[in-house]
């Protein structure tokens, strides 16, 4: 019990720290969101009219209260879910803007994460079972090599081959624009081809971490004394590998998976930027470039909360799955 209580206490403390840093950092870095908006509208080589600047500043209503006052307001707003109005998408609220982007990221990243985890873990188990053979060496070395390829290079190669040269799939975007985004079957059919390339790009390098981790954990657990004991007692190789080796080896992967889920919301900036996929990763990049403080803060908040909650869940899960952890803590 103390194990869990300690974890929750730590979680709350870290959450408060993250929220406070989230407030301070954008404000310390300076810069003028009004100027950023205007230069974007005017274009790079156009003169910015000072009247426009004054108008945009009036529109954004940049606050001039003392910092501690703003901080208290900010805490209150975060707690009540009032995230304010985005500068970039004025006058739409931050909640609305993020709400539209979240389903795209969840579908893309959620599906690929689960698939990567499943494929990586299964492949890793299989490879570990066949450890020492040529199959093992080839797969391990190949996946290590593929894992070092830069992601955007893979993405661009995929776009070039499948979208530009062969023309089978669309090169970018989330949907074609002929239909309004809505949770209908017709729209899903329209958006489905746009999902394939980003998902493929993620799936090429995604399972590798799980694969190598699982393989290494299993090789280690199968080399331990209890495995040798089991073999001596007459357990088959397969039963030993799956019921004993994999079950122990999968623990770090499970907590890793929980942590990866936590980073879901902000985790795929590179994918979404390369494929122009309308998710929260791209939104975050845009918010930071435009010094859109309300939007930036809220997304960072979600990321921080997500990671902390995932951390907490992973810790709890580890405690549930592995009695040794609970006992170690108690001792």
């Amino acid at each position, binding site marked *: 019990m103390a194990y869990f209580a300690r974890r929750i206490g730590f979680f709350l403390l870290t959450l408060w720290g993250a929220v406070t840093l989230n407030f301070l950092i954008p404000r310390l870095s300076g810069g003028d969101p009004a100027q*950023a908006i205007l230069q974007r509208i005017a274009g790079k080589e156009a003169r910015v009219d000072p*009247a426009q600047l004054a108008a945009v500043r009036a529109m954004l209503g940049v606050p001039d209260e003392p910092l501690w006052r703003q901080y208290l307001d900010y805490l209150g707003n975060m707690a009540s879910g009032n995230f304010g109005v985005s500068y970039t*998408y*004025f*006058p739409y609220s931050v909640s609305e803007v993020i709400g539209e982007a979240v389903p795209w990221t969840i579908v893309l990243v959620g599906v690929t994460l689960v698939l990567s985890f499943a494929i990586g873990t299964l492949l890793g188990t299989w490879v570990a079972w066949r450890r020492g053979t040529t199959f093992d060496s080839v797969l391990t070395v190949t996946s290590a090599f593929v894992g070092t390829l830069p992601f955007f290079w893979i993405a661009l190669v995929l*776009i070039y081959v499948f979208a530009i040269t062969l023309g089978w799939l669309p090169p*970018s975007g989330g949907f074609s624009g002929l239909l309004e985004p809505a949770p209908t079957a017709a729209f899903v059919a329209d958006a489905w081809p746009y999902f*394939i390339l980003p998902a493929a790009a993620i799936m090429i390098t995604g399972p590798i971490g799980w694969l190598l981790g699982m393989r290494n954990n299993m090789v280690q657990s199968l080399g331990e004394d209890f495995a040798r004991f089991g073999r001596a007692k007459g357990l088959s190789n397969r039963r030993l590998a799956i019921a004993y080796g994999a079950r122990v080896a999968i623990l770090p992967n499970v907590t890793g998976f929980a942590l990866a889920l936590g980073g879901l919301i902000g985790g795929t900036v590179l994918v979404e930027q390369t494929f122009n996929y309308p998710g929260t990763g791209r939104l975050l990049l845009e918010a930071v470039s435009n010094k859109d403080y309300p939007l930036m803060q809220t997304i960072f908040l979600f990321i921080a909360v997500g990671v902390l909650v995932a951390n907490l869940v992973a810790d709890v899960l580890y405690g549930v799955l592995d009695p040794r952890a609970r006992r170690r803590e108690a001792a």
Partner: protein
Amino acid sequence: MHARSRRRSRARLAACAAAAALALTACTGGGGGGGGQGSGAPGDRLTDEGRVSHLVLGDFSGQTNPKANYNPFSATALGPLWTIYDQLYVVNSYDCTEEPQLATGYEWTSPTELRITTRDGVTWNDGEPFSARDVAFTFNLLRDNPALDTRGVAPGLVGAEATSGTEVVLTFEQPSFSRSGMYLQTLVVAEHVWADVDDPVTFTAEDAAVGTGAFTVKSFNPQRFTVERNPDSWRADTVVVDEPWFEKADAGGQVDQLKLARGEYDNNSMYVPDIEETYVAKDPEHHHYWFPSGSPISLFMNLEQAPFDDVEFRRAISVGLDRVALTEDAGSGYVEVASQTLLVLPGQSDWLDPTIPDEGYLPYDPDAADAALTAAGYALDDSGRRLGKDGEPMRFSFITPQGWSDWTAAANSLKDDFDALGIQVTVETPEFPTLEQDRLVGNFDMTFGVRAGQCSMFQNYDEPLGSANAAPIGERATTNEVRWSDAHTDDLLAQLAGTPDADEQKPIVHQLQQVMVDEVPFIPLWYGGKWFEFTTKNVTGWPSAEDPHAGPDNQHLIFTRLTPVTG
């Protein structure tokens, strides 16, 4: 047992792979997206009424995930609102002529009073009649809501009043002829829609995009914005397109350039490297482009610092810069060298002072620059470094925005020119917001600045040279970042502000050009390019170098002067 299970699992794997491949090929059909539109024969899109069914146009702003915002005064409004709303006049950005739109005439009855006659017989797209009251309402709306006044119309505006159904009078605090163009280019909104709005600043007009324009909103989603021709608009018979489609560009630009090269855009304004190869060569008969000159981009020197406060130094430097090499570095050869007069030539050559040699284009003469610098008291020391009046080698920093690669290339070209004169220059690239701040408060040695290029000569010269627009170092200047402060210039500007007649303005503008050439407050280097690509596969009549009847940003004019191609 092991061998059989291995074979079985391999067979299973093969079956899975085959199924996946089949599933993938099943998606080939819908995958093309917008791919099909570009290929097509001329005249393909002709409708029975003799118009073109649709034109595919470029981005409609709103960032990467646009939201509907049809409020024309909002800073986050969508780009193509020119389709829905009209202006009183359109000022042709190429030759500065004024084309009547919702107004048919105007007159400055006194220096502080502007009388505008509005067009008769115009209706809003919801059926209500348009009148001068809508114009008066629009100006008063801008006056009462500074956050909406993105064009700077309201400062100095006392009020607007409709004296009849077709006449409106604007009253100002001070003589305001010089800003005439700005008032005439205000978009007009409907009183009967906006009068009941609680907060015009956050009003997006999402369900009520009521305008007098040639088109009305058909559909909107973050990838595509479609408008359709309004058959009841006051110039419906000049509009030959049924549906302009605005397509979102991808963030990187490379995929968009590919779409342009394949002819999928009928018109766009994007920067394309090596346009002859990538665009024109793909279809030389139909793919065209025109890059007229925009505002000059100038070398700004901080006039509050030595040696930039020495006019001899500035004059010497102005002939020591290789502008031609710079245009090749900065603009891939698309852009033109700028004239020291600050005019955009040849479009604004009407205003040129004929006594200025070579139209103000300064030569590149590093030997003359060297001699002039030495004569001014800035000699070279033994190691070839130029010494300032304090005896120290000259060393300056040049700031240019991070990520603007063509400007950085230009800065490096200038650095080489300064090196040849013995002056050490370091190019720094801070983030744009930091640089903007530094430039406005005067925390720089040298930087780039974009001023002038407008049709209002007063604005062109007052913004960078008017001492009221400067500020002491450490405080933000509005537009006079170099901090030029000269009684003679201010006097000329005051005269210019008080003269409504173009013929009377010309001698004053000539004298301002002489200030630019003699005193060299800053050095215009090259004209920014306005990018404009178009195909003549579906419509002709686009403005081009051979037929510059409008500037690329005068869409109100362009889209009423097109002719369908009949194939």
